[in-house]
């Protein structure tokens, strides 16, 4: 049997630093570079929550293509701040090694465990696990965070309708010091630009993402698609919450943020390829309005 391709997980791993790793793993024809790849975590000193989602998504993409994935990690990772401890606590090693590295590893109060959520299970997962975690962590009512739950519903419906996959990898963390919540979700489907460019072949991948967040822009991947899901996400998070949304898909990157109360969008083309779609959502907890147990509101046309 041939030797595995060994790739180093970078010193700091986040959506900004992921591309060299992706280049080491995915060839120009968008296939895995080897049938057996070992990910070496020995240099890793810091990993963002989105980094965990990216690794999970990449592993799923490789496994789906019959690539054997193995892991190499430092044998003595001690301390709560060590990234291996953080990965272990997130459930990452349990999922991809079949067991925790440290038997005492457990999910932290500030994080949700890494989950691979199928569309079929997504409604229950969002309704029970996600809402419970977010309301308990922020000491908020369901009514206060309903807009963000709906955003994730939109993303799962998008995965089902467009990604040609039915599974999303998701990981979330609360940062008490900044009073922010980061939610990272990724699918390993065909990617948003792939769908957009089937109808608009002259668009760059970045232009495809910029158009995909406009209300009513639809790729008609399904006849019922009306191009609202990503628009709803950006409206609720960037306009209303003054948070941020970052989308990486195929060779496109779109950063959506609120600058001086003006929603601002920066689209970039990456020379590297992201297999599927990665979305990082940053919520500003200070801007979430506390809504008491809700009273009904009369609908008027």
């Amino acid at each position, binding site marked *: 049997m041939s030797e595995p391709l060994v790739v180093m997980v970078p010193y700091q791993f986040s959506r900004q630093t992921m591309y060299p790793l992706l280049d080491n793993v995915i060839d120009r024809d968008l296939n895995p570079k080897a049938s057996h790849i070992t990910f070496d975590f020995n240099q890793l000193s810091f990993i963002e929550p989105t980094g965990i989602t990216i690794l999970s998504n990449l592993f799923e993409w490789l496994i789906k293509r019959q690539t054997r994935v193995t892991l190499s990690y430092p044998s003595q990772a001690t301390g709560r701040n060590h990234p291996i401890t953080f990965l272990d606590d997130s459930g990452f090693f349990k999922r991809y090694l079949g067991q925790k590295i440290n038997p005492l590893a457990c999910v932290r109060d500030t994080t949700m465990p890494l989950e691979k959520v199928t569309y079929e299970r997504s*409604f229950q997962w969002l*309704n029970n696990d996600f809402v419970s975690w977010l309301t308990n962590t922020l000491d908020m009512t*369901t*009514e206060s965070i*309903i*807009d963000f*739950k*709906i955003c994730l*519903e*939109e993303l799962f*419906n998008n995965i*089902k*309708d467009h990604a040609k996959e039915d599974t999303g990898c998701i990981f979330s963390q609360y940062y008490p010091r900044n009073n922010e919540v980061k939610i990272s979700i990724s699918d390993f489907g065909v990617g948003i630009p792939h769908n957009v460019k089937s109808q608009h072949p002259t668009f760059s991948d970045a232009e495809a993402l910029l158009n995909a967040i406009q*209300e*009513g822009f639809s790729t008609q991947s*399904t006849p*019922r698609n*009306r191009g*609202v*899901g990503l628009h*709803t996400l950006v409206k609720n998070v960037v306009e209303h919450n003054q948070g941020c949304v970052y989308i990486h898909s195929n060779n496109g990157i779109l950063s959506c943020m609120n600058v001086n109360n003006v929603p601002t969008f920066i689209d970039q083309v990456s020379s590297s390829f992201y297999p599927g779609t990665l979305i990082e959502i940053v919520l500003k907890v200070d801007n979430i309005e506390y*809504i008491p147990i*809700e*009273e*009904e*509101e*009369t*609908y008027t*046309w």
Partner: protein
Amino acid sequence: MVNVNINVLDHINQCYSNNDGQIILNLIKKEFAKGNVVSVAFKDVSGVNSSFVNTAFIELLDSYDFDFIKTHLQFKNSNRQINSMIKSRFDFEVKRSKQLVTN
């Protein structure tokens, strides 16, 4: 003309997908065909996404004009999020169809 009540969770487990919306759409259309007014009730529903709303309600615009829908469709037991999603979806789609006509 009678006012018919459709409580969504009596017919679907959740307001989540196009398929969930399709079941509600069929019920509404059946009553509209009889000339009835329909009150859609969202008892115990915390929120709705665009996939559900698009299929359950926006697709009515393919068969009925907006004035007819406004006089024959009502919503009950709803909340801020549900109302906002339904209203913004109708506003956008009605505006878009008017633009298509004028262009």
